[in-house]
């Protein structure tokens, strides 16, 4: 895909930019409380690049929710007590959808699954 980008002050592609023909699902717990801003920012960012962007609550996420997407993005905020207090994500062990895990939550999630990308 050859893209010629016009840039906004935030560095994101503009609405006029040809988008990448991919469906991405952004799952987070940010819609709760004061963290909504991060979710909105990510969704706006992703929508500037991809043809379809969905959202989901990471704590209720199932493999079926991801079925019609190309890539899942997992992002979540830790609890107030500890940075390691992350949502319990119950995707099956044989989950094979392409997935981008983000930050501490991503490292802990993949670490619990025995992956090399786990939190050190």
């Amino acid at each position, binding site marked *: 895909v050859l893209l010629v980008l016009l840039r906004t002050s935030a*560095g994101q592609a503009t609405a006029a930019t040809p988008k990448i023909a991919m469906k991405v699902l952004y799952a987070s717990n940010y819609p709760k409380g004061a963290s909504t801003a991060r979710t909105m920012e990510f969704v706006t960012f992703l929508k500037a690049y991809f043809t379809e962007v969905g959202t989901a609550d990471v704590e209720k996420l199932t493999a079926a929710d991801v079925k019609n997407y190309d890539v899942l993005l997992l992002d979540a905020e830790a609890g107030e007590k500890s940075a390691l207090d992350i949502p319990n994500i119950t995707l099956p062990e044989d989950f094979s959808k392409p997935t981008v895990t983000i*930050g501490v939550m991503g490292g802990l999630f993949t670490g619990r699954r025995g992956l090399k*990308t*786990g939190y050190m």
Partner: protein
Amino acid sequence: MSDAAQGELSKHVVFSTPFKVVPKYEDWPTPSNYKSYPGVTYVPEKIRVWRVQDTGKTYGSVVSPGAGFGDSPDAEILTEGFNEGKGPHEAGVSRHGNFLQWGFNGSPKQMTDAGQKFFINCVVYIKKFDGKMPLIKGQTNHRSRASLLASYIPRITDKAFASQYFGKEVLAKFKGEPKDYAEALAKYCEDNVEFLYWDGGFHVDEDLKGFGMVSNRKIETLEKLIALQSDPLKKPVVDKILTRYLDPKQATPATVKKWLEENRDQVFFTDTGGYKFMAAPKGYLDLPTAAP
């Protein structure tokens, strides 16, 4: 991890497709933790980095352990992460099977232009791995951690620590309390690194050394062991060694010759996956990652 990726860009497609990532390199003073990290013999005074994000913090993002990424063909480090708490070669952004870990914690507005493009490229890149689940799951310590763990012994108050990570026959080579011989144990592990394996703790494969082999993780070793099976006097020990390093779901001493012939181009040895020779499924390794 800080806001920066470490090192110059490789020729990996993730830095060029669909967007060309153009980082602004800086040379930052090498963190003191790199210099004091066990097993590290040389680090430069400055490290070349590029900012992926600007959060204004030196912490908050996470690295994954760099050791062991290269021991199975289903995983790769896309960039190392500059950090002030772990080792000098930890993963900032990495992939294992269909999972890509973006260790940075910043929001899109906190990302630099290069960081945003890298992020989008990562989303595009991981799409290729639909259905390509990890071949192994990390279940054992990589051998490079043996000397590191030995060096920790004097700092750990739990007296069972040494026996949790090292076999009895290994510890029996030293006299006194573990804290007193930790340095010698670390050196012993480094000297025997090619013969280390994990079985409830680190062991040195004296059986393999006895046959004059140079490593337990080379395919040439597997070939030599298969050849030695024809010697009736050596076969019992050879089969014991083969059993140690074969994944019974894929091969046994009785089937290893045929298995190796059929899978030679797919065979790899993994420490983190259990100190086993394994074969990737046909077609699994077909994806090109180098930029044209």
